[in-house]
């Protein structure tokens, strides 16, 4: 009976099942390009029933049970399972498997799941970098990573200054760039940012210690795009637009004349003025317009394709970037290409190669903004034609009233260009003999060949603006670096809870530089056909040198986590460098980090606040060896001696440098504590970190004792004597959400770091000379790059204020002061205004760095905005001197009214004075110091993706973007960001360099 019932039931079920089978159809598209997926597999789970999608991505599958589960899969995309639930139409958007990269982070010599990170590593996807059109991908990173300070000028081809988590050494602040496992120095100009798959910033030593001697400033790992299995895909990206600089408002000829004369009259002197008197406002030369373009072209193109099968993958691209300088001469252009391929021989062996050739070309951008602003507007560009000579360069005018060189003439004479060819090649082989055990060997070659030519013609404008003999120079410089990296990695999970990852490795690196330079003078004519060294007739000069250094390293790392709750990572690297002698050649750089995923604990299972809570801590030691290759040895150099009663010169040799055989590495010890949090279904994520880096044995040059008899100018020696500290915090908050067709994200990152020189060479290091003094003083126990000078305490408004500005007993502090001059504080109240009254009057490094990134998309429209700013930094604005008219230079428009010209007329800009006896403009003082805080809109971009009904098989997107459209700042100079560049001990002085231009671009993306 029981058996009959069972059989009956089975029959009924069979009948029901047959009766519930349906036919399911639909279209499968890709999430990235919204195009139909061809050849994707659609299979009923647990059966052999299945089909593949057609040319339009469509499929039809008959006899599918209503409650079946369909499995959609294809190479390169995530496999998706969908319950039918009686539906007859199931359209699916498949996600590219590459998006798994979101979950994987590249670390030194390996990868790790993002959630398993124990160190401070920030990852940025390539698509976030590609939106900004720039010649250097690092510019696109500005504001996107907390703790990363990037400053740049607008000069085409310039390399931005990148500082990760402050400064721990005076020997260079640039991080180490590693492209596809190959260290490439400190400039990644050769990369097209469209080719970048992702960037990882290793911020703390527990992450960067695996790079040993060169990790002290942090490491930036760059992974380029690789081929993916699947049909070949093409992509074309283009952006073109123009850049523009805000024209400074300088005085016209009539105001210039008035100010010029008033400077003399205010000092009761007769004006020494050489131009036409009483000129009208309309007259005069607009030197800015004569020197600069109103708009400068910038354009960028990239064509790429990629594809592959389960045996091989390939990817290639070719790109062009061109940028004109804002001057009427000067540009930079580069042609880059990239080829990447990988072949899988079998399940054990695969090999591949990345091949990145490039060509760059510069026509040098002049540095004439200062001249264009200060050149006397009463001077015409050219002399009267009656005075012209056969040498066209003699026909320009000499400034009538100042010593400023004619900027148009300087531009006409400028003839300097460079061509650079480069190749980065990284072939590799990977062998996995046992599941989880991978041996990888990669050889990298990074070669660059640069040829620079310069011709300066003979010219004569007057005795102070001339070159007696023309000169032609050629410089050839080659860099050939290679690197051989071998690693053995073993990954294993025990008992489904113990996850172990072991890595050991050995690397060899060699860096080689060769250069040769030659010049000759007195080329017979200035004719372009003779702009060669061989055309010179006198004073042949030649010099050249080879330089080498090398590194041998052993490295190892252990990563372990228990049940993805408790993590521990430890690494060690032993580096041997050619820069040090036997006893100090090798150094060990250990690191360790711990993490605890609190949300993985049982007691957190039932809470609904945190989606993720992880606490991290790390410690590590990294090194720095950025010194001369031969710092350990004494050298002799060519030198002239003078002998005898006739003071005859004899060619000889003299001590060139003093070596120190006891030199060793700089070591930076780093502590990092961080917490990662996610809330509200991972829509809100927060990361906060605190760090402290302290360098020991910092390499500094120190004077030898005079008793040793070394020449004073070459008597310094490298010694391990310094210490610095960088301490700070970072906070990163990101919000992502989607409401229907509207998705948006907002991210804010804040970071603060304080850089302190704990120990230097016993004496302050002064930098940035200014009127025989120095602006910056780096002193032990103090923050670096601080301005040091007198405190300007407003202006004397009348004689009573001058008379009151005395010492305790009536000592006159500023004997030459007149109403309208600056009052300088006698800080030590000793009745004398001297060096002892100087103090720190400003700091170049900011208290806070801010990055704000926002984006939204609605249907086919997308919008993004990036902001970057610094708060609390000061700029020493030397361009404030443009109010003085010193030396007969031109002044800002309105300078007369801006300058003090009667009681109450100004409290900042001192009176006009030809002698400046009170040294208003000659002293290093807080008069020049301004708040350099700014918040700059780095980019606004709006894009529109055309509906695929219109574009059929391809995806077409148009965009418009504005780069640097506006800046919120109180700073009165041209660009607070450009003013913040410079070496770490000499930052923050604005010498009127090339500002960051506003850029407007139209963009086009086609994918098919």
């Amino acid at each position, binding site marked *: 009976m029981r058996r009959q019932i069972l059989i009956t039931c089975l029959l009924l079920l069979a009948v029901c099942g047959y009766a519930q089978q349906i036919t399911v159809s639909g279209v499968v598209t890709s999430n990235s390009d919204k195009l139909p997926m061809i050849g994707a597999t659609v299979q009923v789970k647990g059966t052999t029933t299945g089909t593949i999608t057609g040319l339009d991505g469509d499929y039809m599958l008959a006899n599918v049970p209503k409650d079946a589960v369909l499995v959609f899969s294809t190479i390169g995309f995530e496999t998706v399972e969908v319950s039918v639930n009686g539906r007859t139409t199931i359209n699916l958007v498949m996600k590219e498997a590459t998006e798994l990269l979101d979950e994987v982070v590249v670390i030194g010599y390996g990868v790790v799941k993002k959630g398993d990170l124990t160190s401070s590593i920030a990852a940025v996807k390539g698509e976030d970098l590609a939106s900004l059109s720039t010649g250097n991908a690092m510019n696109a990173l500005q504001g996107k990573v907390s703790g990363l300070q990037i400053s740049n000028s607008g000069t085409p081809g310039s390399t931005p200054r990148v500082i990760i988590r402050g400064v721990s050494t005076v020997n260079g602040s640039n991080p180490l760039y590693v492209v596809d496992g190959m260290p490439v120095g400190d400039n990644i100009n050769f990369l097209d940012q469209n080719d970048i798959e992702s960037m990882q910033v290793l911020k703390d030593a527990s992450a960067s210690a695996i790079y040993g001697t060169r990790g002290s400033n942090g490491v930036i790992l760059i992974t380029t795009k690789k081929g993916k299995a699947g049909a070949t895909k093409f992509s074309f990206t283009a952006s073109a637009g123009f850049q523009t600089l805000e024209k400074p408002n300088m005085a016209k000829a009539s105001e210039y004349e008035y100010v010029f004369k008033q400077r003399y009259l205010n000092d009761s002197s007769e004006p020494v003025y050489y131009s036409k008197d009483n000129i009208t406002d309309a007259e005069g030369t607009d030197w800015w317009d004569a020197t600069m373009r109103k708009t400068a072209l910038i354009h960028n193109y990239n064509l790429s394709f990629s594809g592959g099968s389960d045996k091989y993958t390939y990817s290639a691209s070719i790109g062009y970037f061109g940028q004109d300088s804002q001057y009427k001469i000067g540009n930079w252009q580069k042609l880059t290409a990239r080829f990447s391929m990988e072949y899988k021989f079998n399940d054990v062996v695969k090999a591949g190669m990345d091949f990145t050739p490039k060509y760059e070309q510069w026509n040098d951008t002049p540095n004439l903004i200062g001249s264009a602003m200060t050149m006397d507007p009463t001077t015409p560009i050219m002399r009267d034609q009656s005075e012209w000579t056969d040498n066209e360069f003699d026909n320009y005018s000499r400034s009538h009233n100042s010593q400023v060189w004619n900027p148009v003439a300087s531009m006409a004479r400028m003839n300097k260009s460079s061509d650079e060819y480069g190749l980065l090649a990284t072939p590799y082989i990977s062998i996995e003999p046992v599941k989880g055990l991978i041996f990888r060997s990669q050889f990298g070659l990074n070669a660059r060949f640069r040829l620079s030519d310069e011709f300066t013609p003979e010219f004569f404008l007057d005795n102070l603006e001339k070159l007696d003999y023309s000169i032609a120079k050629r410089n050839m410089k080659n860099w050939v670096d290679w690197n051989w990296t071998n690693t053995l990695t073993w990954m294993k999970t025990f008992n489904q809870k113990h996850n172990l990852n072991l890595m050991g490795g050995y690397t060899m690196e060699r860096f080689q530089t060769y250069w040769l330079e030659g010049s000759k003078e007195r080329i017979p004519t200035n004719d372009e056909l003779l702009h060669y060294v061989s055309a010179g007739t006198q004073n042949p000069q030649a010099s050249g040198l080879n330089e080498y250094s090398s590194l041998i390293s052993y490295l190892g790392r252990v990563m372990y986590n228990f049940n993805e709750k408790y993590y521990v990572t430890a690494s060690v690297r032993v580096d041997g460098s050619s820069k040090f002698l036997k006893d100090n050649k090798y150094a060990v750089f250990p690191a360790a980090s711990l993490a605890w995923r609190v949300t993985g604990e049982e007691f957190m299972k039932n809470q609904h606040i945190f989606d993720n809570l992880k606490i991290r801590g790390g410690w590590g030691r990294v090194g720095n060896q950025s010194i001369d290759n031969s710092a350990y040895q004494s050298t002799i150099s060519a030198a002239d001696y003078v002998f*005898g009663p006739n003071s005859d010169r004899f060619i000889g040799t003299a001590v060139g440098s003093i070596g120190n055989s006891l030199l060793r590495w700089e070591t930076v010890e780093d502590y990092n504590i961080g917490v990662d949090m996610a809330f509200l279904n991972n829509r809100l994520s927060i990361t906060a970190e605190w760090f402290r880096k302290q360098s020991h044995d910092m390499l500094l040059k120190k004077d030898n004792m005079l008793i040793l008899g070394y020449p004073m100018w070459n008597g310094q020696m490298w010694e391990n004597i310094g210490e610095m500290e960088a301490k700070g915090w970072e906070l990163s908050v990101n919000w992502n959400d989607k409401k229907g067709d509207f998705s948006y994200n907002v991210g804010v990152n804040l970071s603060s770091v304080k850089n302190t020189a704990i120990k230097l060479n016993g004496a302050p290091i002064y930098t940035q000379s200014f009127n025989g003094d120095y602006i910056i003083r780096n002193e032990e126990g103090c923050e670096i790059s601080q301005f040091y000078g007198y405190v300007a305490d407003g202006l004397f408004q*009348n*004689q*009573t204020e*001058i*008379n*009151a500005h*005395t010492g*305790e*007993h*009536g*000592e*006159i502090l500023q004997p030459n002061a007149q109403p309208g001059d600056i009052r300088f504080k006698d800080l030590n*109240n000793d009745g004398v205004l001297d060096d002892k009254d100087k103090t720190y009057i400003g700091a170049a490094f900011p*208290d*806070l760095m801010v990055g704000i990134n926002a984006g939204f998309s609605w249907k086919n429209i997308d919008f993004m905005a990036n902001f970057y700013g610094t*708060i*609390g930094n000061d700029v020493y604005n030397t361009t404030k001197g443009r109010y003085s008219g010193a030396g007969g230079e031109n002044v800002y428009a309105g300078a007369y009214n801006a300058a003090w010209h009667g009681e109450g007329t100004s409290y900042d800009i001192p009176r006009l004075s030809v002698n400046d006896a009170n040294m208003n403009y000659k002293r290093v003082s807080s008069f020049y110091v301004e708040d350099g*805080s700014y918040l700059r809109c780095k980019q606004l971009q709006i894009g529109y993706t055309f509906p695929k009904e219109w574009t059929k098989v391809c995806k077409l997107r148009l965009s418009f973007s504005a780069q640097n459209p506006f800046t919120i700042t109180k700073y009165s100079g041209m660009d607070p960001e450009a003013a913040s560049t410079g070496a770490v001990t000499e930052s923050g002085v604005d010498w009127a360099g090339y500002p960051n231009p506003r850029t407007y671009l139209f963009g086009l993306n086609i994918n098919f």
Partner: protein
Amino acid sequence: MRKSLFCTAFLAGAFLCGCTEESVYTDVDGQNPSFELTTEHIRTLTGYEFTMSGKISDKDGISSINLYCPELYLDKTINLVELYSEIQYEYDLSYSFTIPEENKCESFKVKVTITDLGGRTTEGEILITMDGDYTLPEFTSRYTTDIKKVYTDADMTATVEFSATDNKGLQYLELDIPELEINIKDNCTTDPELKEGPTEWTFNQTITLPTDKLGKFKMYTRTVDLLNNEVVDSCNVIISMVYDYDKLYLADVPENKLNDDIFGVPMLIDHIDVNQYRARYYNKDAGTEIYFIPNRDSFSPVCIGADNSNNSKLSLAEDAQPIVLTEANMYYEINLNLIDLTYSMRTYSIDDACYPWADNMKIGEETLDQWANGGNPWTMFKIGWSNTSPSNIQEFTKDETNPHLFYVDKTFPFSDGNNHNIMDFNFFISNYHSNGWWDFISWYKLKSLDREEGVFARFTNAGNGTRYINPNYDGPTVYDPDAKEWTWFQVSQPGTYRFYFDVHLGRGKLLKIADSNN
């Protein structure tokens, strides 16, 4: 950011600390500050600086002093709270101010306001008038010659006369010898308010010097005008036991041998100050007896020797004993003080004696930098005398015992090559130089001394001498080429003469050592 943080902290601090501020400045006596001006009337001139001064005290603590005079554009506040880290209860005001050149007013009033920490004030006023005097009086005749007296002089008086003028009037002229308690003030005016006085005045007074005080005393002659501007001259009053001889000689031979030399005996010693002499002497033989005499030819009228009853003192008496130099081959330095007739003596060895030439130069060795080029080549260093050039010197022989002592013999008459028999010799002393280059190191007579005194001063003219001379040498040296000359002597009897020259002492002597064979 930094500013806002600071402001926040400041406001918080001000809020939290507001109550304690009052407690810091709790009144002590609640009285106004006391203020006493040094003078309430300052006389100055346009373009000159004057100083306002006074004493201020307040038991509560002084906060500030304000000096206010709108006509002078003066409104200065001396904020003691800012200037000093501790509260000032007493304060010496001293504030200088310069009357502007363009001033036209004759007088000003500066209002002085003192404020204590309790906010109480005291005011004062200083009158500034433009009738000051910043011109110093001037001496029209001075008295600057030292007064020298021997205590045995019958006349111990001296008449001092000097005159002065002043643009506004003289107050007094004064003679002052503090150590002798002599002070004579000659008042020029009888006006007690010192508003008027003569513009010229002469001081003429005779003073009597004591006989019971020996020594050198400072004498000041001072002129003071009506506004206490003063000028001062000074000279010395020397009361000694003997006269201050211009020259004093060391005689190491008996009186009857004083004239046996051609020059150099007795030996002139150094006159280093009034009545102060220093003799340096090379003692060849033990037991040498010496005297000091002011007369080169005779022991009379004065011969200074050791006191018969007290050997550590000097004596001019007839029974004075010779000073005996007991150590042979030793240099002696004897310091004589003729004010109180005392002397001191020290010896130093030949090795400790300083050469006049550079340390690297050795007589008889190739150590002379022949072309002043660092020794390319080095040539033989030898010295001698010559009447022509350094290439033609008659080389000196070095004494066997004392390397500082040289000698050379010369026989007179000698022929000049033209059958002239020469009995005189005009010479200088120099290093040898093959090409006759002059003045590497040489010795000359000083024009200021007699040739009989045998003093030879070192001279060099090569590279300021640093290459050839020893900078530590403190014997006779001449740097001015115009202050030196060759020396000349004449002998009356034919014979062989020996010239001794001590390069350490810079002294030479010429003695006849043999009669002529002719």
